[in-house]
Each structure stands twice: as C-alpha cells, then as structure tokens.
C-alpha cells in the first residue's frame, strides 16, 4: 500500500511508538510521525523504527501535529490516501485497512472510526457515558449525525487532505474536523472499529474534565464563525 500514508501525532510516547510504527510498517511503508516537542526520546524511537520523523520545534498540540503530518504526507510522491492513527497503540491496523477498503469501494471522501458501532475494550462505564454525551453535543452543534465524535482513527482521500485546515491546536480538533466535514461537504461514512483501552492508553488519555474545555471551545467557534 504505497499510496497510503499513516499520520501519527506523537507526544511523549517513547515507550510504545516503536511497536506502533513497526505494526503499521507491516502493511504500509509510509508512517509520518509528528513529534510534537516530546521531552522523552520519542524522536529516536521513531527513527529507529523507520517512520518519517517530522519534528515540531515546540509543543503545539495534537490538532496542530495532525495538520503538520497531513501537509508533510501530501508531499510524499504517490500518496493518495491518508490515515490518522493514534500513537498510544489503541487503534488496530486491520481496522484501518478495512476502512481503506470502504474508501475505495464507496464514493465517500472520509471514513470515520466509531467505537460505538464496534467495541471499546476496557472502557469504564463512566468513559462510555461521557463519550455518548459528547456525541449528542457534537450532533447538536455540528449538524452532522455520528455515533462517535472523538475517534482518532480516520481514513480520507486526497481531496480531504488538500482542503482540510485544522486550526484548533489542542484536543478540540476532533470537533473541528467534524465541523469541517459539514462545512466542506465531504461525503462520509462511519465504520465500526475496536479500541484497545490498555492501562497505558488510559493513563495517557485526556482527563474527563477536558470535556468542558472542548464544549466551551466548540461553542466559541460557533459564535465567532
């Protein structure tokens, strides 16, 4: 799959990023890792494992890292399909492959992973409830109906990669991408994916209270647009 680029935002993931990259390289030679100013040796692990290293000189947030990774991936010759993938090992490559097949066999521009169509292994009841509430909020504010609003696994074509402009630097980017899907009129579909909530990914994930920040930022964007 030389026409596919995986885009992986990396912030202090030295422990797991190597195995995540190697896992992807088994099916896809292009793994673009944006090291977002990590203070550990994530950058060395990325080079060792054979991913493309794109180094943010300062920490700018996951949304900014995704945008950088997509812009770099666009420059790779022959790349026409893009996958956004988390660095902490919670996504499965076979899910991404399945989503790529959906992208090819239908006329959608972007395929979104959903853990509520699939399984969320190891998620606590509270986490599930919070995520469902986030979905309801997203459906209300974005004008698009989804079953999962904050899933980092996405597959999209060149058109989306060329026109997507993520400006929200932090975790709010997930909501912003959904708004951009509505605004830019991308054709989309959701596909069931499995999320592995390991102890590591739960510890690295964002605290639940961050939902407040995301909600406020989303409303602010609605007002200022």
């Amino acid at each position, binding site marked *: 799959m030389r026409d596919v680029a995986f885009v992986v935002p990396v912030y202090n993931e030295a422990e797991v990023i190597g195995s995540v990259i190697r896992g992807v390289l088994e099916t896809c030679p292009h793994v673009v890792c944006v090291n977002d100013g990590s203070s550990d040796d994530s950058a060395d692990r990325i080079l060792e494992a054979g991913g493309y290293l794109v180094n943010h000189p300062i920490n700018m947030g996951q949304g900014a890292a995704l945008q950088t990774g997509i812009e*770099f991936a666009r420059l790779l010759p022959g790349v026409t399909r893009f996958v956004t993938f988390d660095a902490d090992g919670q996504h499965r490559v076979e899910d991404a492959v399945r989503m790529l097949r959906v992208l090819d066999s239908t006329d959608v521009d972007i395929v979104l992973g959903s853990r509520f169509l699939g399984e969320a292994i190891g998620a606590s009841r509270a986490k599930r409830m919070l995520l469902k509430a986030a979905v309801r909020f997203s459906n209300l504010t974005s004008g698009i109906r989804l079953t999962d609003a904050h899933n980092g696994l996405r597959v999209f074509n060149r058109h989306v990669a060329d026109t997507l402009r993520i400006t929200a630097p932090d975790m709010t980017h997930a909501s912003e991408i959904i708004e951009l899907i509505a605004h830019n009129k991308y054709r989309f579909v959701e596909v069931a994916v499995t999320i592995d909530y390991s102890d590591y990914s739960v510890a690295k994930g964002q605290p639940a209270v961050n939902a407040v920040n995301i909600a406020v930022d989303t409303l602010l964007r609605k007002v200022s647009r």
Partner: protein
Amino acid sequence: MILIQVILILAFAAIFLVALRSRSAHSVNAWKKIAFAVLMVVLVIAVLAPSMVGVVAQAIGVGRGTDLVLYLVSVTFAFYVVNQYLHAQEARNQLHQLARRIAIIEAQERYGMERLTVLASTRTTPAPGTTAEQPETLPPHA
C-alpha cells in the same frame, strides 16, 4: 494642586508618552489612538475636577461619581481582556504556522524528495536508521 493630582497627572502623561513613542504605534488603529487620547483628557479632567464626574453620573442616573468610574473601568477592562485574548490567539496561530513550515522543511531536507522516491519503492521492510542523517547524499535544493 493636591499631591495626588500631581502624581496622577504625571502618571497619565508618562503613559501617553510611552504609548506615542512605542515603535509599533503606527500599526495601531487610528480610532484606537483617538479613543486613547480622549480617555487621557477625560482622566486629567476627572482628576482636576472630581465634582464634574459626580455631575455626569447624576445626569445619566448613576448615584455617585466613583460608581460611574468603577463601571467604566469594568467595561474598559473587559474590552481589554477580549482584545488581548484575540491578539494572543492570532500570534499563536502565526507561531504555529511558522513552526510547521520549519518542521516540514527540516523533514524534507532529512529525506529529500528524490531520495524519497527511491525509499518509497525499496522500503518494504523498515530500514532502521538508514533513512536519516546522511546529508552528503541529499539532492540539491530545488
């Protein structure tokens, strides 16, 4: 003139001079400059003739002059905060775009576009370490 009046007027004058002399003054909106000058004049008048503030306050239905001043300061401060927030966001966006350009240019240099084509066709298995840090083999900049 009471001592406090002298101190306050000197302070306003100093702020006004600093604002005028600042290098970036030309980039500030002309209306903001006019508003700032008017504010300075009003402040000096208020310091010299405090009773006038009371008269104005009565005229617009606020009890005391100090209350009127407090309200005005609150509104001005709120404007200031929002203004600064928007400026900070704009500056952050510019910083991010600059940093993104640097990151991409550096990565392009590390891999080189012509070298990349070769890499892409040979990299069926990961080639640890071989992808980077060989500047002498990089193609010249396009």
